[in-house]
């Protein structure tokens, strides 16, 4: 069970998408796991063949538990009898035991195996509905969220209207044991708040934060974006957040002390720049999955990634690599109308960049005062790794980059 973020302690296997004997390659989605925050599709890191599934569907296990064994490509297959009797003293007959590796932490699963959407699976788990007994109305007979909710409603109504037994039971009935652990939506809210609190308490306890802020004149960036979007069909339009994400990634490349992880008492800078995007959930809570290699992507690519990510966060389904590997996080609370947000660094990361609402303000330049769209950019960063001087240079670099939006 991979640790999908600093705030995860355990996960429940909702579904296996592979079976023993299946070949897998790096990036394949092998399982769907439920955590307090989201339903997460687990990706494999290396190619091989699934040997054994260790943890069954419906079981909740702590982080670090081996979920399945995968035989890497090139490793010899282990015959069944050799596994059963490893002590057989026939060196020429028994191949060496194949080293197996725990499956590490996706793409959509092949359609013929898709019995239910991950969202439907999660809701089934929450409502205690047995998916196998639900008739699917989705594509290829897949069970949808609506199917699960219908089944749960029918079950409730059946329970209410069932006639009482005419003959009293002779023995006291055994307590009904739910087939699967169920997490009600309200419990999920409580659980999510608890994991956020744990991660933030750890951050405030361990990370000596410092905070910086600067006003950025957004007139060039917004002007460029407006002209650009006029040329584009609605499906191709960019949101200004995309400019901010790209500017952060490029600035992090210039000031590497704010991009990476604090691990085992030392800073490990990251060559790759994976920007975590704090996305609020409609039901409350938030999650900050990463867009990978933002600095190397075009604005259009980042926009496609961002839209995909927001849609999947809202649907409650994410991929393991997105959850686990952000190297720096951006929060943009501007939508809610605040002008300034000072973040709490998400461990083991070392910096969090905040952007407030863009407001029209009096702005003095070249001895003249004019009205311009202005945005507050902030940095919360780890003093064990950087200081205000370097942090200040980072924000100045973000500002500089946003003055030349056409180059982003």
């Amino acid at each position, binding site marked *: 069970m991979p640790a999908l973020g600093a705030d995860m302690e355990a996960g429940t296997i909702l579904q296996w998408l592979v079976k023993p004997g299946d070949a897998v390659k790096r990036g394949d989605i092998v399982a769907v796991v439920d955590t307090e925050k989201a339903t997460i599709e687990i990706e494999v890191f290396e190619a091989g063949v699934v040997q054994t599934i260790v943890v069954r569907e419906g079981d909740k296990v702590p982080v670090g538990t081996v979920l399945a064994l995968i035989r890497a490509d090139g490793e010899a297959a282990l015959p069944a009898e050799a596994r059963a009797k490893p002590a057989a003293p026939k060196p020429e007959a028994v191949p060496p035991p194949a080293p197996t590796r725990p499956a590490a932490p996706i793409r959509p699963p092949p359609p013929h195996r898709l019995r239910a959407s991950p969202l439907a699976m999660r809701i089934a788990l929450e409502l205690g509905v047995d998916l196998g007994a639900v008739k699917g109305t989705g594509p290829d007979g897949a069970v949808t969220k609506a199917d699960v909710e219908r089944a749960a409603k029918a079950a409730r109504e059946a329970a209410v209207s069932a006639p009482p037994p005419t003959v009293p039971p002779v023995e006291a009935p055994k307590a009904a044991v739910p087939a699967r652990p169920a997490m009600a939506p309200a419990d999920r809210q409580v659980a999510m708040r608890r994991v956020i609190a744990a991660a933030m308490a750890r951050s405030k306890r361990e990370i000596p934060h410092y905070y910086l802020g600067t006003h950025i004149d957004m007139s060039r960036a917004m002007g460029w974006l*407006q002209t650009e*979007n*006029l040329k584009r*069909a*609605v*499906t191709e*339009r960019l*949101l200004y*957040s995309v400019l901010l994400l790209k500017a952060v990634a490029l600035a992090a490349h210039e000031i590497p002390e704010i991009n990476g992880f604090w691990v085992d008492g030392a800073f490990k800078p990251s060559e790759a720049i994976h920007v975590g995007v704090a996305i609020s959930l*409609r*039901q409350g809570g938030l999650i900050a999955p990463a867009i990978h290699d933002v600095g190397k992507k075009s604005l259009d690519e980042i926009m496609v990634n*961002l*839209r995909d990510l*927001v*849609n999947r966060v*809202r649907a409650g389904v994410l991929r393991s690599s997105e959850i686990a590997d952000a190297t720096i996080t951006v929060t943009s609370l501007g*939508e809610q109308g605040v002008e300034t947000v000072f973040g709490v660094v998400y461990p083991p990361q070392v910096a969090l960049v905040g952007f407030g609402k863009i407001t029209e303000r009096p702005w003095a330049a070249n001895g003249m005062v004019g009205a311009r769209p202005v945005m507050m950019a902030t940095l919360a960063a780890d003093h064990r790794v950087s200081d205000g001087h370097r942090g200040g240079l980072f924000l100045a670099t973000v500002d500089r980059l946003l003055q030349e939006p056409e180059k982003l």
Partner: protein
Amino acid sequence: MTDDQIRTLVLREISKIAPEVESGQIDPALDLREQIDLDSMDILNLAIAIHKVTGVDIPEADYPKMASLNGCVGYLRARMPRS
């Protein structure tokens, strides 16, 4: 399309973006963003969804005209082919 049909269409697309919102809760005269907490990505997704269904391309500059449900209906009625 009649106003009712347009309204139903817009509400259906909103319910895909914000599944927890019940259409009866929406005051058609008030700002959608504030009523049901839509952000800029939600608004863009709504504009894309409406474009796909109706063929009407909504320029960014016209978003304020679509702020409320009534605004959406009026805006689309003026731009959709009459049938």
